[in-house]
């Protein structure tokens, strides 16, 4: 096996960590975003206020800083070690920071989407005797999903690139791996990491285009 093949193999292995972080973050932050969105829209003012302050704090500070705080703060402040040792612990901490961060961004997109569904849709559901959850799941959800697809596509594309931040707590993601070669004087692996991201984002773009087409059968 020649050197280039070995390098690409190792880059691919480390990109798998980016993919894992991407997948786990989406898995948890997409539903959690709804919880945050409903919190910030709550008619119980203290809850709405608290949630909006939280969203402000998360959106107002760098994700990199949040990763560092989530990873180190429990140990430094409370002498707790909730993340376990080694690489899996570092990935867990990183995932949690990402989930919280992305849930806050998603919540704002959801809030916009929910508020964009005409009030008449809720009222039509109400006068037909539907329950609140039936109105949400059977009437408004699909309309709001259609409305938020473009901004969600944007955020999700940003997410795969943000996964490179995982290295800040020594998660061996693809750019960190490539930089090890660079520090030994081999620069092309670092450049070639772009290919991984480009291919990934290309796939996402196709996927979102396909979903948008699937939802083209109705107009909001």
């Amino acid at each position, binding site marked *: 096996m020649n050197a280039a093949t070995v390098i690409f193999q190792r880059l691919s292995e480390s990109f798998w960590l980016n993919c894992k972080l991407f997948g786990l973050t989406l898995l948890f932050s997409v539903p959690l975003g709804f919880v945050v969105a409903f919190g910030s829209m709550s008619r119980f003012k203290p809850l709405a206020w608290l949630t909006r302050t939280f969203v402000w704090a998360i959106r107002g500070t760098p994700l990199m800083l949040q990763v560092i705080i989530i990873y180190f703060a429990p140990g430094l402040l409370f002498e707790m070690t909730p993340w376990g040792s080694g690489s899996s612990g570092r990935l867990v901490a990183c995932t949690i920071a990402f989930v919280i961060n992305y849930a806050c961004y998603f919540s704002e997109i959801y809030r916009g989407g929910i508020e964009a569904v005409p009030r008449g849709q809720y009222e*039509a559901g109400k*006068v037909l*005797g*539907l*329950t609140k959850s039936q109105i949400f799941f059977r*009437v408004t959800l699909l309309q709001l999903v259609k409305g938020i697809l473009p901004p969600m596509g944007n955020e999700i594309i940003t997410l795969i690139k943000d996964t490179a931040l995982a290295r800040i707590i020594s998660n061996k993601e693809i750019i960190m791996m490539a930089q090890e070669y660079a520090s030994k004087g081999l620069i092309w692996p670092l450049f070639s990491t772009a290919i991984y991201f480009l291919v990934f984002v290309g796939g996402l773009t196709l996927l979102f285009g396909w979903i948008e087409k699937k939802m083209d059968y109705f*107009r909001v």
Partner: protein
Amino acid sequence: MPVLEVQSIKKSFGAVEVLKNIGFSLEKGQSLAVIGSSGSGKTTLLRCLNFLERPDGGRILVNGKTVFDAAAVKSQSEAQIRQNRLHFGLVFQNFNLFPQYTALQNVTLAQELLARSQPDYQRSKKAILEEIRTRAQGLLASVGLSNRMDNYPHQLSGGQQQRVAIARALALQPDILCFDEPTSALDPELTGEVLGVIRSLAERDTTMVIVTHEMAFARDVSDCIIFMDDGRIVEQGTPDQVINHPQMERTKAFLSRF
């Protein structure tokens, strides 16, 4: 016994008193037209009947049974309100069809969801859904849309959408069907087809409350008319009394514009 009794309904939005002591009753099979200028409280009245607004005072009775009492509003659970709502149907000014469902699905959706609480739903699911579907097809045919059942709302004209909305409201067999300016969003040509459907409902003795600006239609179709101004009922009676021989100056002034 009247099918609908509205007793001294009051409603304010902030400092603005929109409904000031509204009371009337309606017999089964009759249609009531509510006329008046914009801002007179007609739509708010209709929204109170459909529990989209909560009156600050007064009572609403359907078939002699209290469905709303402002004095006992706290004791009403969400489920009770939902139950009481089903006495009324509402057709909106701008249709409010569900865009992701076909005309037929718009009509069947609520019934399908309600049917789930039937005790024998699991056992005879197929038969129940089939029955709902057949009835919905019949309703859509009755409003002249048998060839449009599988179209989505955006593929239909405004008049067709409003007829779907009427079929959707009828599907739940409400005691009282309410219309909130059902033709205000339509051009004159499409207005005719919707009014035609409402007219045929009146001929089949559907109990209706119709808020409208179509005076000629109100006169022809309704059994009684209420003229509202500034949150009050100024005059009520038969179409002949209110439109042809109004007693109050305010009514005369309003009607002189038509």
